[in-house]
């Protein structure tokens, strides 16, 4: 079975490490970035199957990253999971417009995140 590639972007190094470890332990290939700009560049080079990104990052926010990806050829439909520690959730409309697959509020469970990644990749493979 082909190894699926996940890009994890967060400016909190501990979060990146723990998410990456959980995914790697479960057979995923993980690439990481600690800011939005780097995340976009790595996406273009590595072409991941799914992106897990923090909402609030220096340089480029998670939403700005998704907006840029959506306007880039080859990433129009890439599944995205947004992690956030913000007090207020993003607008439902914005979530739908940007086709954000899942929106997880911090603190989150790595197990729960893993299950979302697996389910989203499964359903995207079927469609």
């Amino acid at each position: 079975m082909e190894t699926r590639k996940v890009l994890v972007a967060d400016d909190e190094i501990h979060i990146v490490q723990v998410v990456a470890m959980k995914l790697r332990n479960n057979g995923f290939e993980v690439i990481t970035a600690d800011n939005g700009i780097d995340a976009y560049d790595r996406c273009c080079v590595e072409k991941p199957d799914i992106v897990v990104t923090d909402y609030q990052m220096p340089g480029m926010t998670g939403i700005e990253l998704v907006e840029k990806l959506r306007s880039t050829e080859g990433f129009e439909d890439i599944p995205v999971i947004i992690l956030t520690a913000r007090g207020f959730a993003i607008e439902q409309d914005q979530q739908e417009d940007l086709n954000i697959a899942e929106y997880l509020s911090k603190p989150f469970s790595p197990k729960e995140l893993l299950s979302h990644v697996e389910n989203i990749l499964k359903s995207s493979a079927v469609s």
Partner: protein
Amino acid sequence: MMFNKQYYPLILGMSLIVLFVILVIPLGGTSIMESIVSLAAIGVVIWLGQQFLLKTKMFLVQIESLKLDYKEQRDKASQCSKDAKDSKLQVKLLQRQKRNTEAIVYSISEAVIVTDANEHLLMANEAAGRLFGFDLKKSVYKPLDELIGKKELISLIVKTRNSRARHVKHELQFESEDNIYTYNCIISCIYDENNEVCGAIAVLHDMTKEKEISQMKNDFVSHVSHELKTPLASITAYSEMLVDGEAADEKMREEFYSIIQTQAQRLNCLIEDILNVSRIESGMIKINKEPVSTALLIHDAVQMIKSHAAEKGVTIEEQTAIVFDQVNADKEMISQVIINLLSNAVKYTHKGGKITVNSEIDESEDVVRVSITDTGVGIPPENLPHIFEKFYRVKKNAGIAKGTGLGLNLVKQIVEKVHQGRVFVRSQVGKGSCFGFELPLIVAEETVESDLVIRSK
């Protein structure tokens, strides 16, 4: 033909006289007839008397009636005079009430506009005049179109009046050269005695400040939530990994424990910072002021930070020669100020950089001035005016180091609110920053007093 009863005696008398003339006189029965005629004459006299009495009675009744009419007319005249007096009084009362109403309307800080059914101004107060820029004295009965540039408000007044709604609430924005003001506008219909809408009253409340405070509250909650959740996310995730046995070996487990511990401390520091800012703002903090040497406090703080700076390859130099009690201050709080400024300098200075801590006495201003100068990344000029604001972080530098955006605000609160000092900052992008503060020097009498207090203790 029927006769009225009052004429019966007259008819009887006249009949007897006629009978006497036709029957008795030709027969010669004079004496009897004379008696009858006499009786008839008496009857006629009685009737005439009766008529006279009746007429007299009627005349008296008419006089009585005239008397009553006269009294009634006199009463009416008196009532009219009283009414006229009352009317004058009522006019005066109404004028006074109008003046009172105007005084009340004028004294309202909210802008108030009263219009008639054709959108002509009936009344407005000074606040409305100021807001819309019209002269109150020259504006009454003028069409609103000529007085108010904000057409949206006029159309809202018309719409409310047409809808006959009792109260309608709107939010209106007014732009000036330097700001956008938000007004809460309540328009109410005015009804006449027939329950017809005869005008409208608009009250405009400036809620710009309230909006700003509300926005600040939301930002505060959002910031606090973000700052609290971030370390909590690490603690939760690493705990779960430990519980699930995801750590490969003992070394990794120890690393996880260490991360959890560090993040818990971070959480605690953040909560302490929030509480300290809140305590200072509300005046609930316990302050222990005593004569303090800033030079000694600087030295202690530098010793504390030095190893952390050395790990990063940053050197710290002290330039504080004078060591004596210069300021009346809370030692712990001023230490916290110096540590916050020093640790910020270390955070934003690259490897090989230098931090200089200087303290000097400015006798012309009676202050001790402490400055911490680094060769770090610097702050863009547009960010400098906000740098001491709560939760404010320079976006450009946010990726360089972690921070809550509370440290510098705490510095400002401690220096300015608790010690009546002053904070300052100078910076140049790419060259470095200089953060510092001034505290008032202890004047001679104050030192003596403090000494006495200390000795007496």
